[in-house]
């Protein structure tokens, strides 16, 4: 006989792994559908959808697993592990996680939309800072206002999508998630 706690744990593990898969596919899909724009560091950030959902359903540990796992898997798959792009991705993902976690601990003050916006802005800021450190010049910071400005609508869009998605996940699975 399986206990209820075991069932919840299994569900959490399976759902987190599925979200990691979704994050990787969304990230790759985005690079195919939307070519890199003229402003470096600006992306739709579709993969963050899975991270926001993981943060909302399970909490920061699972969100970190999805986000950092995605960065690692995509780097392994595309052969960019350890390169400058990888370092930028990793630092962006970590900064975004920290901000989203901080916003999510404020109860109902911020919604998933707020987490997503804050996370997107932190992602962009960290990437540009790391890019500046890597090339030893402040040149990438010149893009900061454009990148930061563009991260707001993309963060908003992804946040809204996450809310829509969460509202359509059946009650049953949410209660099994223990949240």
């Amino acid at each position, binding site marked *: 006989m399986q206990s209820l706690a075991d069932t919840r744990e299994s569900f959490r593990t399976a759902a987190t792994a599925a979200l990691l898969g979704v994050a990787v596919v969304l*990230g*790759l899909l985005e*690079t195919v559908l939307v070519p*890199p724009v003229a402003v*470096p*560091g600006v992306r739709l950030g579709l993969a963050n959808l899975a991270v926001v959902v993981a943060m909302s359903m399970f909490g920061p540990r699972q969100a970190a697993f999805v986000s950092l796992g995605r960065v690692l898997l*995509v*780097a392994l798959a*595309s052969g*960019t592990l350890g*390169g*400058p*792009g*990888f370092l*930028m*991705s990793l630092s*962006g993902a970590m900064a975004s996680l920290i901000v989203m976690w901080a*916003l999510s601990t*404020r109860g*109902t*003050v*911020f*919604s998933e*939309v*707020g987490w997503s*916006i*804050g996370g997107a*802005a932190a992602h962009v800021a960290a*990437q540009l800072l790391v890019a500046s450190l890597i090339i030893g*010049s*402040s*040149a990438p*910071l*010149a*893009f*900061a*206002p454009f990148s*930061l*400005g563009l*991260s*707001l609508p993309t963060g*908003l869009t992804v946040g*809204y999508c996450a809310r829509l998605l969460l509202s359509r996940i059946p009650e049953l699975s949410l209660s099994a998630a223990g949240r």
Partner: protein
Amino acid sequence: MTRCDVLLLAALAAVALLMFPISSAVTSSGVSSAVIHSPSGTSGVSLDEPGRYEIAGAQGVVILEVENGRIRAVSAECPDHICVKSGFASPGRPIVCAPNGVSVTVTGIRGEGLDAVSR
């Protein structure tokens, strides 16, 4: 979307707007100059005004032309004329005439193209 979400959005938008003057100050500084290396020495050239430079190389003369803030080799006394075919120099993409020992490097911020894409 809660009230604090909106406040966060507004605050970040304000930060982005306030950063515009700072970033434009960074970008406008120092793009337009080139450094010419040749057997007869090294010299700096401003790309702000058009001009023609005759550089004495190891085999013959290399003629460089500056127009619209860009520099290229228009003719060279060498076998392959690779430097002429390579067109305008840009930061990270110098002109090199190996037989004559002449090279032109543009200093400044690399403007176009991506050198890494993060995923």
